[in-house]
């Protein structure tokens, strides 16, 4: 990025595109140039742990998957000495004289997503990193574990290439430090990624001994508590709560010793084969330059300074931020903020939606149903991925001899744009009416090749993919001959199936452009307003008589936001926006329909109304657990954190005049009944403790915790509280604090007893106020809602997203989205980001005129249907119903609701209901071809 001019809605951005020295359109990524390049360089992608060439593909998932030349190492670019690569490239794709290109683009808004870098332990020589070979960072280790890493997925260590058996992880390297060179914040992701690495290590070597030296274990993410338990319960895994110092590198073995201390054993020194430093996240160096050019502000930590409630907005209008440039965040949060940034751009630019869209034109579809099958087989080398193991020419030769095959050829990269184009041409030239591509997985490439068939003028369902990469070359790398035989078997099976495939039609259904948002808390209102700002009409329904939800009980955030003022503003906006229809005291009685076309009946008082909508957002929030422990409800001095917050805000004297306050964390969660962490309570109690200290700095505050989970920037407030003499006392789940009422001299004292591990003694505290950090619990109504919208709940009763990492605000049911605490406990600004994220995702549907339903759905052959009703009873999609025919009632499939799983087909006694594209005939042909050669 060279410069940016203009303002929100009309930015002019100048970009300098560095030369790649490759013409991207010509390169197929075959790798011949890489093979012949004489210059070996360290592979940055593999953390310099392995070698690469001066010309190479950056990494195996790079987009585009083409090479580039490192100008610092290329002999030609340095001294005009070598041109081997240009000689071996038969696509003439290499251009050693390429110059930087200057591009000027006009954009309405900008999203900054520069990501993060890892903390470099070399800077301070932490734990001898950089000097001692068997001390690596977690990112080094990640590459070592990876199949595309320096040891091709074998777990080896650097010094001698041996399999390390005894491995230590040291947490918080570079994070949670107030010493020079360290980052004061918590990097949020290291506890979980370390646990993942332990699990993967144990997968590699079940006998590996894994030791994690940690401070607090911060498993605050959804399902992370269970993940932590899973790791902890693996045999040979130890979690040790201790600071660690480097002992020494042992000459000879090059093993490393670490010194640590436990309450039981005192100081110990232990030897490890490999030490992994769980390094934290830092903003990349170039963000300072970036900030200057974009004229945005950074925080003192070097992250993007964002709006205190909307973490996606930068300090400049029209420029948004997503991912770890906001601060240390995990994958789901990055994706949420990416979708959220999308929504905010769309709010800004909604008036121009679709102006630049180009409609694709396909040639007319040739009717081939009367023709004999004419199968074309394309066998892909996938660069060297397949070709190195499987003898591709031999597979091609074999395929051309199979029944129905009229054309077979190889392809270096079947998916390359020009190859796909050639396949389309071949379909027309050779009159192919079925196509088999033997390459990689249909999961990633089937849509592309189906499109190729459309370009070739035949129905896209005439396509079949034979996976000879994941299912063959990748897993049989050392058995070339057998792998080639297997590839032939796979191709033969695919050809057998392809010959029987039928053309299928996809349904285009109109989209109702209105949205339904269920839940009128901050998440629901934000989502509704965002949808309205993007030009869509919204029904916002709330079961209580007023909007605001949980936030009505909150008065401030850790960062100091006046929550009440904010919520009142939001409520006013929701009521005032002409496209937002608010319904309070509303309950949903029925919900039906499908993506693009839902019909939901809503009851408000005596009124029942049906609304039609194209998408739904579930934002039903969560509640505070009402404790049954620690004398809650029996003594008015025992409060929850939310109650304390309210009383502080009201200046209640009992609170402000208290001399001794005890807070207990994890009340009602991280236990058997609720096996999750409520995520927000640690921050919540720190906030209240700081407020109390503000009122009376001499107040004694004891905070009894299990792990302080003040992740991200909240860590700074934790430190502030400790500096202000809030006393933090850790307790174990097996040895919870005891709370008693003691009568003494007519006075009723609240006595709290807790074991202090540091002092190794029982501590008794007289509390004027006992504050319980009560769990966040899902509302009981979730069950009913999950039934109505056919979306699932997780074991804890929160809504279950489609994919924990990659689709955090989508449901598996298309057209239904979720945000806020309905998903999992979270703080206000996280809920707001998710609300924008859900609205961004929802608009991907609402902005379309129609949605397409797959052609591969079930169908009933009425003649064979005996009306037994089994299919109706097993189809929980509700896609099958009986309808009346002259021959009596017969099953009928609603193709829009059918999810294409095919359970009905397997259950049907007469074979009357068939899942199209996967019919009995199709699959039997494939099964027969597995063993039989025609």
């Amino acid at each position, binding site marked *: 990025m060279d410069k940016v001019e203009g303002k929100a809605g009309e930015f002019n951005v100048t970009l300098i595109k560095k030369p790649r020295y490759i013409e991207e359109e010509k390169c197929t990524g075959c790798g011949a140039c890489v093979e012949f390049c004489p210059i070996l360089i360290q592979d940055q992608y593999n953390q310099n742990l392995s070698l690469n060439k001066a010309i190479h593909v950056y990494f195996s998932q790079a987009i585009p998957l083409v090479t580039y030349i490192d100008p610092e190492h290329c002999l030609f670019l340095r001294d005009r000495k070598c041109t081997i690569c240009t000689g071996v490239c038969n696509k003439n794709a290499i251009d050693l004289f390429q110059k930087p290109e200057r591009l000027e683009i006009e954009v309405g808004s900008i999203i900054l997503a520069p990501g993060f870098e890892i903390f470099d332990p070399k800077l301070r020589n932490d734990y001898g990193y950089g000097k001692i070979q068997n001390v690596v960072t977690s990112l080094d280790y990640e590459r070592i574990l990876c199949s595309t890493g320096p040891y091709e997925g074998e777990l080896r260590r650097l010094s001698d290439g041996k399999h390390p058996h005894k491995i230590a992880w040291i947490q918080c390297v570079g994070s949670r430090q107030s010493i020079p060179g360290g980052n004061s914040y918590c990097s949020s992701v290291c506890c979980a990624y370390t646990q993942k690495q332990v699990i993967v290590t144990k997968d590699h070597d079940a006998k590996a001994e894994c030791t994690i030296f940690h401070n607090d274990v911060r498993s605050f993410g959804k399902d992370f508590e269970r993940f932590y338990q899973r790791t902890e319960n693996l045999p040979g895994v130890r979690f040790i709560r201790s600071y660690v110092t480097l002992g020494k590198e042992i000459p000879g073995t090059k093993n490393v010793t670490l010194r640590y201390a436990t309450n039981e054993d005192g100081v110990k020194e232990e030897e490890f084969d490999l030490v992994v430093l769980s390094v934290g996240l830092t903003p990349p160096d170039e963000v300072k330059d970036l900030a200057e050019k974009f004229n945005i502000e950074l925080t003192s930590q070097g992250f993007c300074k964002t709006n205190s409630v909307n973490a996606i907005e930068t300090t400049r209008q029209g420029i948004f931020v997503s991912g770890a440039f906001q601060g240390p965040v995990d994958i789901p949060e990055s994706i949420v903020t990416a979708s959220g940034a999308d929504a905010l751009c769309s709010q800004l630019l909604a008036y121009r939606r679709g102006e630049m869209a180009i409609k694709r034109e396909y040639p007319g579809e040739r009717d081939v149903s009367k023709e004999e099958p004419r199968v074309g087989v394309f066998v892909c080398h996938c660069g060297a991925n397949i070709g190195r193991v499987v003898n591709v020419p031999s597979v091609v030769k074999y395929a051309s001899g199979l029944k129905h095959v009229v054309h077979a050829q190889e392809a270096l990269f079947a998916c390359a744009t020009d190859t796909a184009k050639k396949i389309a041409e071949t379909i027309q030239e050779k009159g192919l009416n079925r196509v088999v591509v033997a390459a990689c997985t249909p999961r990633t490439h089937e849509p592309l090749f189906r499109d190729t068939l459309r370009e070739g003028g035949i129905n896209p369902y005439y396509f079949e993919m034979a996976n000879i990469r994941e299912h063959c070359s990748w897993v049989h790398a050392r058995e070339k001959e057998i792998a080639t035989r297997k590839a032939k078997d796979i191709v033969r099976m695919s050809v057998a199936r392809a010959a029987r495939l039928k053309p299928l039609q996809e349904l285009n259904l109109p989209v109702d452009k209105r949205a339904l948002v269920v839940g009128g808390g901050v998440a629901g209102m934000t989502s509704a307003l965002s949808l309205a700002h993007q030009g869509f009409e919204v029904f916002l329904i709330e079961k209580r008589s007023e909007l605001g939800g949980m936030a009505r009980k909150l008065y401030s955030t850790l960062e100091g936001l006046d929550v009440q003022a904010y919520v009142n503003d939001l409520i006013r906006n929701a009521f005032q926006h002409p496209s937002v229809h608010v319904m309070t005291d509303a309950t949903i009685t029925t919900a039906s329909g499908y993506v693009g076309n839902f019909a939901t009946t809503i009851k408000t008082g005596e009124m029942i109304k049906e609304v039609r909508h194209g998408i739904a957002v579930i934002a039903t929030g969560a509640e505070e657990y009402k404790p049954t422990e620690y004398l809650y409800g029996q003594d008015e001095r025992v409060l929850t954190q939310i109650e304390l917050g309210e009383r502080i805000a009201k200046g209640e004297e009992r609170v402000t005049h208290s001399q001794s306050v005890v807070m207990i964390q994890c009340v009602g969660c991280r236990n058997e009944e609720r096996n999750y962490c409520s995520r927000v309570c640690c921050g919540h109690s720190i906030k209240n403790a700081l407020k109390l200290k503000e009122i009376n700095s001499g107040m004694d505050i004891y905070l009894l915790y299990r792990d302080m989970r003040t992740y991200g920037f909240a860590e700074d407030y934790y430190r502030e509280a400790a500096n202000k003499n809030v006393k933090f006392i850790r307790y174990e789940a097996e040895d919870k604090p005891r709370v008693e009422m003691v009568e003494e001299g007519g006075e009723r004292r609240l006595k709290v007893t807790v074991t202090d591990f540091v002092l190794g003694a029982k501590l008794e505290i007289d509390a004027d106020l006992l504050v319980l950090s009560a769990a966040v619990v899902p509302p009981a109504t979730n069950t009913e809602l999950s039934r109505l919208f056919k979306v699932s709940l997780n074991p804890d009763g929160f809504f279950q997203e489609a994919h924990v990492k990659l689709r955090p605000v989508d449901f*598996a049911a298309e057209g239904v989205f979720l945000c806020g605490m309905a998903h999992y406990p979270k703080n206000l600004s996280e809920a707001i980001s998710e609300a924008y994220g859900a609205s961004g995702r929802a608009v991907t549907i609402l902005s379309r005129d129609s949605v397409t339903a797959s052609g591969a759905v079930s169908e009933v052959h009425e003649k064979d249907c005996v*009306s037994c009703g089994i299919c109706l009873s097993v189809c929980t999609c509700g896609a099958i119903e009986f309808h009346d025919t002259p021959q009596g009632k017969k099953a009928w499939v609603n193709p829009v609701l059918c999810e294409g799983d*095919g359970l009905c087909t*397997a259950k049907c*006694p007469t074979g009357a209901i068939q899942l199209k594209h996967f019919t009995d005939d199709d699959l039997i042909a494939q*099964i027969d071809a597995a*063993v039989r050669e025609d």
Partner: protein
Amino acid sequence: MCTGRIDPGFILRAFANGTDGVYIGGCWPGECHYPTEGNYHALSMVLLTQKMLKHIGVHPGRLMVEWVSAAEGIRFAEVMNDVVKRVKELGPIGRAEGIDENRLKLKLEAIRNLLPYIKLVEQERLGGHFHSEEEIKKFYGSEEMDRLFRELIVDPLVMSEIMMLLREKPLTVGEISAGLGLGSSEASRYLNRSSRQGWVRFDQRQKRFVSVRSQGVGTRSVERRG
């Protein structure tokens, strides 16, 4: 497509083709990608099919199901290596069990003919839809299931086998009991029941039983229901 799509017919077809082992890889319980929880149905189907395989003398271990998520590459490799090892240990189908090829095919075909009926029985008498792996395994391991299996499946299956033999040519009780590996009194019992149903009759002239209809037992049952 889901593991719930797997028809027992596919498995029988594979075995009839001489495949020595069939492995089904499904999503972990509770993680079905569809609202139908087809993996539970797949497990029930496998347990029932294993019982039928065992009944006809085929080692039930030739049919395997293991849960593997798309993210568990290493586990999948381990499972597959284990599957191959198990199949190798079991040896070639039929031969390892001491059943000759034709008899094996006949027996597999007898089950296949009965599948329409078995599917109805499974739905209406064998518990229908389950919601956990434990529930399914408990039910299929129970004495109740053994009893239902004997009453509802074994008897029709034997009769289906008899019908198939008789369709080839008329046979004596002795020939039938030898052909199916049944005791002669058992064979007589089944033949009496079949002739009461009108499916077979004793031909005085040939002194042999002959088939009356060309249809299998299962198809008839469905028609009755329809």
